[in-house]
């Protein structure tokens, strides 16, 4: 093409063709975001985020992995598709002791591994013990520490045996367990596990010596005593028979059943692990127990699953397979979705700059509240934030509603626990708030603003704390506040920066203080925050581990804790302990609400927003719901070929009933009345 005229003619021609093709396709599909054709092979293509670390559910605690594990492993219970409340899985029903510290699970007798062998209660005993074993080194193991002696076994601790009996925890400052009613047959193991909690000491000799030296009473008692290591067999898990499993806790935990859907409690195959060791998760060795089994593993490219005919409920699995694509770049994920290469993708994915465009596709965009909160922790161990008044002032000076409007899809939050996720807890909170209002005799209109954005009160409170805020030109100034001693730390990310800049502007506007911003690489940031080695404020995002408000209210419980504020308050710890010992659920929620109210008055953190699910699915993908954790039980998902039956206006998807899903759910929960 030597002639420049011919080159330009060619380019113009190409451009015209482009416009023409573009015009045709977009007019045909303008209702949907990009190419929308239901896959004919009945295989769902799902972008799962980062490359899965491993297919061993005990090892990875990540959410992208959790979604994959939900397809290939099953546990006693499964997350409900809409509300994430536990529904029967391998356990077809269960009983709970009146103390809520012992559970008996009745397993189905037709559950099988992908290699065809039967699943029995012994598989659960094995899986639980492996999860707590020190050499498994599971990072989610803490979730199971409610099970009696699980923590002691995991930490390599020892019982103290003197003569024929063991020293008991309650005699040395430990909590006394209320006598349990116990359920099921009273076996020898049951007698042991029901006996009062034994004292456990550190397994390391040096550390143990220190522990003993610190307590004179203990020192006298251990003289001549024998130290017996806590064994896997001591953990409160027992196979009563092949299809009956009993789990005993060290303390009442009303939310325990909900916890059991977590990946940590899913079954792992003894037969494969014994035989292949750390290589058991390879394609040629792996044995699974979920609705799907592994067909192909292509790291960083695709994990292909196929329906497992051995699965006990295979008749109710609608997809023939799932292809999980590990893609991390959000723009690339959206490109793949728009180009029709994938059918749905994980949460938190639509970039803020795309949201306006994408949310217009009402049949596809999932904007629902999540059980996660964004907040700023304040280092309560260093001045000036060691003063609750300063913390209050900074909290009151942030307009969360404005922040949410700016963020477009998040919802404002002024407490630690997100609203709209736990309806019963929301009621308890409202009730407790009203009670406190009456106790303090405050007018309802004044009370409504309590704890919310209030620039005037924020300035007053900061002035009271010894940092006077003065009028300065059009705005405010607080010259005595040590801005050189504080910063707002966040991990490097565009969204985090925009939030930080917004909040920084609010403080400048309302308090006359410019807090310096400090952006850090993620792991560097985590270290500083976890060790509470930061000045001022640090960004935090907490996703609930289970569907109970305690996963949020307990953030600052004990020390060290996950609140990362350096906060440690015995009164608050006691309030939580008391609440969890309460057996009446409504009353327990009220006690938790009181503890949360008390905590927010101490204000170790500034709540900002409730996150949004923020993901998309093509309208032909049905039975997939924007639940609060984006944890999708895959056997409910199906691909609808008939465009007339595609999802429309997904804003109502949670309220609308899909007869197929409802029927499936009803059949599953028929065996367990308490599950919804």
């Amino acid at each position, binding site marked *: 093409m*030597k002639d*420049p005229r011919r080159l330009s003619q060619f380019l113009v021609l190409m451009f015209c*063709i*482009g*416009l023409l*093709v*573009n015009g045709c*396709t977009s007019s045909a599909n303008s209702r949907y975001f*990009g*190419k929308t054709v239901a896959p004919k092979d009945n295989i769902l293509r799902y972008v799962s985020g980062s*490359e899965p*670390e*491993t297919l*061993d559910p005990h*090892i990875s*605690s*990540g959410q992208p992995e959790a979604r994959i594990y939900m397809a290939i492993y099953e546990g006693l219970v499964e997350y409900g598709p809409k509300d994430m409340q536990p529904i029967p899985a391998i356990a077809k029903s269960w009983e709970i002791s009146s103390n809520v510290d012992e559970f008996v699970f009745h397993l189905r007798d037709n559950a099988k591994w992908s290699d065809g062998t039967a699943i029995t209660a012994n598989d659960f005993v094995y899986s639980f013990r492996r999860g707590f074993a*020190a*050499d498994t*080194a*599971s*990072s989610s*193991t*803490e979730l199971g520490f409610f099970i009696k002696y699980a*923590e002691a076994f*995991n*930490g*390599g601790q020892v019982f103290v045996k003197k003569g024929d009996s063991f020293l008991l925890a309650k005699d040395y400052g430990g909590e006394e367990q209320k006598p349990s009613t116990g359920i099921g047959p009273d076996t020898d193991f049951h007698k042991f596990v029901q006996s009062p909690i034994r004292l456990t000491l550190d397994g390391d000799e040096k550390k143990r010596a220190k522990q003993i030296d610190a307590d004179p009473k203990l020192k006298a008692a251990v003289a001549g005593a024998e130290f017996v290591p806590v064994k896997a067999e001591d953990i409160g898990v027992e196979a009563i028979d092949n299809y009956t499993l009993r789990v005993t806790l060290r303390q009442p935990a009303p939310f325990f059943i909900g916890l059991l859907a977590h990946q940590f409690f899913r079954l792992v195959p003894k037969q494969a692990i014994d035989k292949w060791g*750390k*290589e058991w*998760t*390879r394609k040629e060795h792996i044995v699974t127990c979920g609705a799907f089994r592994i067909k192909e593993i*292509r*790291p*960083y*490219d695709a994990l292909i699953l196929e329906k497992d005919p051995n699965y006990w409920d295979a008749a109710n699995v609608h997809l023939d397979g799932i292809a999980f*694509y590990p*893609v*991390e*770049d959000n*723009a*690339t994920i959206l*490109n*793949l979705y*728009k*180009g029709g*290469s994938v059918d749905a993708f994980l949460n938190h994915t639509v970039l803020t700059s795309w949201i306006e465009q994408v949310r217009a596709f009402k049949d596809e965009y999932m904007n629902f509240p999540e059980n996660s909160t964004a907040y700023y922790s304040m280092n309560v161990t260093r001045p000036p934030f060691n003063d609750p008044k300063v913390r209050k002032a900074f909290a009151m000076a942030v307009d969360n509603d404005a922040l949410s409007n700016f963020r477009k899809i998040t919802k404002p939050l002024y407490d630690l626990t997100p609203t709209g996720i736990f309806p019963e807890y929301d009621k308890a909170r409202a009730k407790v708030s009203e009670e406190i209002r009456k106790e303090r005799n405050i007018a309802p209109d004044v009370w409504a603003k309590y704890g919310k954005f209030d620039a005037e009160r924020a300035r007053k409170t900061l002035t009271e704390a010894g940092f006077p805020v003065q009028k300065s030109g059009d705005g405010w100034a607080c010259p005595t506040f040590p801005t050189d001693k504080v910063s707002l730390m966040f991990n490097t990310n565009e969204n985090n920066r925009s939030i930080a800049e917004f909040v920084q502007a609010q403080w400048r506007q309302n308090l006359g203080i410019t807090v310096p911003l400090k952006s850090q690489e*993620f*792991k*560097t940031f*985590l*270290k*500083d925050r*976890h060790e509470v080695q930061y000045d001022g404020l640090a960004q935090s*995002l907490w*996703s609930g581990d289970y569907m109970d408000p305690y996963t949020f209210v307990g953030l600052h419980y004990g020390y*060290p*804790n*996950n609140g*990362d504020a350096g906060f440690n308050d015995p009164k608050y710890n006691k309030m939580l302990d008391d609440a969890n010992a309460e057996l009446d659920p409504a009353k327990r929620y009220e006690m938790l609400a009181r503890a949360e109210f008390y905590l927010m008055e101490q204000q170790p953190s500034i709540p900002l927003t409730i996150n949004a699910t923020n993901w998309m699915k093509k309208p032909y993908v049905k039975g997939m719901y924007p639940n609060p954790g984006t944890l999708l039980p895959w056997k409910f998902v199906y691909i609808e070929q008939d465009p007339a039956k595609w999802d429309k206006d997904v804003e109502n998807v949670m309220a609308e009933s899909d007869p197929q899903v409802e029927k499936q759910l009803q059949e599953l929960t028929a065996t367990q009345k308490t599950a919804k």
Partner: protein
Amino acid sequence: MLSFIIRRLLIIIPMALLVVTLTWALVRIAPGNFYSAEKKLPSAVEANIRKKYGLDKPWYTQYGMMMSNIVRGDFGDSLKYQGQSVNEIIRRHLPYSAVIGLLGYLLALAIGLTAGTVAALKQNSGFDYGSMSLAMLGLSVPNFVLGPILVLVFSFWLYLLPPGRWGGVSGIILPVITLSAIYAAYIARLTRAGMLEVMRSDYIRTARAKGLDEKTVLLRHAIRGGLIPVLSFTGPALAALLAGTVVVEKVFAIPGLGNIFIQAVLNRDEPLILGVVAFLSILIMIFNLIVDIAYGFLDPRIRYE
């Protein structure tokens, strides 16, 4: 010549070990661990993890064990991706990067050399201005901009090519073009400059004076000299291309080595970082050596003792 090559090859080993040591030190200095996550671990749980992966031993023991394994060519298992050895990961993901890199390299060479040579021969012509402006554009548009533009045009307007993921010839086209653009532009400009300089040099004048026809002058004499600056650029460029280009792999979701490497750093996956770094440094040193050898063939003035 042979002794030169042997000397250079021998030096590669200690150099690579030095690079690995420095990288190891840097990884150790960086805060955080492969297991650190939003949620804090109880200290007993953290101790279990550290023990399992040998992180509880003193640093010199860990360094010694690592080095003795590496000398034997074993980088151990990835910390993050359990049950997968580093060697296996590199072996598995290198081909993706290599295919795209090599094709991108060849495309860049084809476009760059042709455009550069023609532009030099027809200096100040329309083609010269046109191609060099295009090359300037190619140099100035970063690949994270070019990639999405190509996706927009070819995937969303024309619906001709997939917007990403590995699979089939159609999936390779856009990444290869994106990858080659900047190199093609660079090579074109280097070739043009090199050729212009050579075409005016004395030995070309001599060749013409001998009565050689223009074609022989160009192909037998000019090109060899004109390509030397291109060569010193393209040698290391090939090493970099083969080993993976992070941005293009990210934009098109290609499971190449570049992608793996960045993720390994963010994950603090020490064995994987060290493995990739050692592999890359050896690769780059070998390509530099090849370039040095090629000089000798292209330019008779360069001799190796």
